[in-house]
């Protein structure tokens, strides 16, 4: 659907203090203010959020699916990068 007056926005919600904003979806809105309101109305109806970011979808640069092999496969054989060889003290909290 062509929506010249209401471009696409990506929505990020932070559910609690100390956590990062997470991508939750997208929406159409005429500008940033309206996008923020729409994000509140669509994505925080059940108390999901304390903070909202909206970003124009056009501002996002995405990796090329055709380059998947080069981009991601080299990491698959490096199991020593997973933090499973030491214990994280409980007091550290969210990592």
């Amino acid at each position, binding site marked *: 659907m062509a929506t010249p007056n209401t471009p696409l926005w990506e929505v990020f919600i932070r559910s609690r203090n100390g956590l990062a904003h997470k991508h939750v979806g997208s929406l159409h809105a*005429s500008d940033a203010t309206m996008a923020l309101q729409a994000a509140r109305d669509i994505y925080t*109806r059940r108390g999901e959020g304390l903070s909202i970011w909206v970003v124009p979808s056009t501002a996002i640069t995405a990796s090329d699916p055709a380059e998947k092999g080069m981009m991601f496969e080299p990491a698959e054989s490096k199991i020593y990068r997973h933090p499973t060889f030491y214990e994280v003290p409980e007091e550290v909290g969210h990592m």
Partner: protein
Amino acid sequence: MAVANIQVSETPLVLYALRRADDALILGHRLSEWCGHAPMLEEDMALSNIALDLIGQARELYSYAAKVEGKGNDEDKLAYLRDVRQYRNLLLLEQPNGDFAQTLVRQFFYSAFADLYWRAMMTSRDATLAAIAAKSEKESAYHLRHASEWLIRLGDGTEESHRRAQDAIDHLWAFTGEMFSVDDGERGLIHAGIAIDPASLRGRWLQTISDVVSEATLVLPQNEWMQQGGRAGRHSEHLGHLLSELQSMQRTFPGLTW
């Protein structure tokens, strides 16, 4: 209609709570009519959210009216088993949705009032009304922001959206005066510190809406004649149709729950 209307003993406080409950229910119902029909999904959700806020306010106010009355009525009976002449909502709020601009302007005029009203009512000597006000004020503040931002974009948008927004303002303006009128029963509650005098809010209301309307490149009408009657049960032809839909289930299957 298979079920008789209930009778309500309308003491000033019962009537006061009923009027505000009717305001919230009728506007909430009107907004719910948009569910599945709004111009875009985002707005479908936004209007439904506002509807649910208002129906929540209505439930608390009806429950309180029933409790104060103490005659065995409850929120459901008050909502479903009174006929059109027993409803005391503002005429503004029963006006049909019309186009999107008309829905938004109706919301804008009312929310700009409700925001000030509930904020002032937080100091009511009636603890229940003060508590309902504290909750409703946050909701109304958002409703006002939502309607204001939309009105600015409609007025300052395309030629067509500007025309429709101005038509809606011109059409609904004469229904705004009723928000600020008070009868003798309410005057007593105002003196007792239970209610606030809505006339005292009119200056700030006018300032709020003037600022937004002028930013929207729209104009407020100059005519001062105002339509009254809703608070006394004299309604436009639209409310009966609304109630016949709102009440059809309880009138047909009394006491039905799901």
